[in-house]
């Protein structure tokens, strides 16, 4: 069991993306892992991610993008978090970030350059995100 009650995660599907199933699964998995989950759901704008993180004092923002337009939707998000005083908030992104099958290393680089702390290839399991949050916040495992 991990003790991570003090970590809050803002979760949402960015842009005009309506794929709701993965979002619900992630919500459930992160909640089970003991995190405080603030799920803003599908079709979430960058502003909504930022506002939610401000009010809730979030530690991590987990962005999903499933419909292949993640790159356009995610541009500028990092800059906005800096502007909003959220410099310490970790940014993760995953789902189906680009259209079709492109070289993952290239895609990952793109998102890291955009300011994301972690980017995940399609098919990543929720447990990987949980482990990474624990790692990033050095939560003691019992």
């Amino acid at each position, binding site marked *: 069991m991990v003790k991570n009650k003090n970590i809050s995660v803002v979760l949402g599907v960015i842009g005009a993306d309506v794929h709701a199933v993965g979002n619900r699964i992630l919500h459930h998995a992160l909640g089970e892992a003991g995190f*405080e989950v603030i799920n803003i*759901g599908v*079709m979430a704008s960058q502003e909504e991610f930022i506002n939610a993180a*401000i*009010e809730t004092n979030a530690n991590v923002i987990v962005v999903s993008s499933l*419909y292949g337009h993640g790159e356009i939707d995610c541009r500028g998000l990092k800059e906005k978090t800096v502007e909003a005083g959220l410099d310490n908030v970790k940014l993760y992104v995953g789902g189906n970030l680009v259209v079709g099958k492109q070289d993952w290393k290239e895609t990952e680089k793109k998102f890291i350059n955009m300011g994301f702390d972690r980017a995940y290839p399609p098919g990543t399991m929720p447990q990987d995100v949980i482990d990474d949050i624990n790692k990033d916040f050095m939560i003691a495992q019992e």
Partner: protein
Amino acid sequence: MSLALLIDFGSTYTKVSVVDLDQETIVATARARTTVEKNIMEGLLQAKDKAEQQLGCQPEYKYKLACSSAAGGLRIVAVGLVKDLTVEAAKQAALGAGARVLGVYAHELSIQEINEIESAKPEIVLLAGGTDGGNKDVILHNARMMAESIVKPTIIVAGNKVVAEEAKQILTKAGKEALITENVLPELEKLNVIPARRLIRQVFLETIIAAKGLKRAEAFIERILMPTPAAVLNAAQLLSTGCEGEQGLGDLVVVDIGGATTDVHSLAEGLPTRSGVSYRGLPQPFAKRTVEGDLGMRVSATSLLETINQKEFEKLTNVHIDRVKKYINDVHNNYSLLPQDEEELKIETAMATYCAGMAVERHVGTLEVVWTPFGASYVQHGKDLTETPYVIGTGGVIVEHSQPKEILQSTLFNEEDPTLLKPRKPEFLLDESYIMASMGLLAEVEPEKSLRIMKKYIVSIQELGVRSQNSQ
């Protein structure tokens, strides 16, 4: 015969209605000028005398209850963190408590903003910010700014519960009156305005009434229960949801066109009615009130004129714009003026039509079309009221107007602007005897009777037929 005397101290008129509680009928209504500057009782006694002349006796009353919007109403400033989140939640709480919201502030208050708040002279500052366990710094900063300022109002802390006590301490140590209630937005998806509304009302009862010179009236009546807009919202809520022993009407919208403001109350969840529409933004309170300070028939007549498209207004009334301007200036300067001829009546009607239409437009939610590479997606902000079955008109102008239907027509959905989620095919009802505020009071002691009386006296406009032109 058991009677209730229900009083509404308005900014201009003190209105009384007498209810026969056994028959569940309105047996007398009367009004007189509000006399809050000198002695609030003068106006009340005049109105009561008039009502008792109609009754032909001076009975004992089982209940004497009042609401008030006299002496400037209940003045509140709302402070939060993010504009669309805790600021909006705090504003909703204040409006639902029947307040006049003088200003709203987001993020860390600056010195200039503190100066603004000081000069606005609110009676209550509602201090929100942060979800429970969320941001702590901003609400504490704002408490400190307020502590160092010369603001005198009662400060209600309704923010992040983790630091609510600390914020209160900061304020009380500086000699401010500070109280705590539950967070208006404990979680992002959970609006929680009721506890704050309740506390606002309590502060109104305990401290503000005395400060407004309304205390004298309390020797005569039992209690001034609430601000008038809160009474109207209370009545609307009862009429919508019903009570034990009596069913309500279900979802409804109330449009209250006044001299200074136009209020819209909606009693509806307002979730998307079409499939494929995603709801975004703060959850909506079931009982929602919005107030338009620039839309009114007398005090705000000139600001109404500034808001409206003059060409369109001219076309609608068929009256020359100079005549329109003159009439509007006249009624602005003399609140008790009434239309004297056909043209003035047309202007008055058009003014009310605009007030109702625009106030509802600002109240309802919007549908935003988001174009994606794969076609259109729809995002809804605010309430979808397209399927709301009832729209109720109230307020001096509309209840006395010969064609209330014409006025309410402007509240309808417009195919030319399908992004505004106004009611499509509601039935129009009229608060013909102008009793909603009174019934909101009666609801506190006799909800079932109050509801049945409303169902009897709030009538379908279709059934009204043509009302006489001179009922004014």
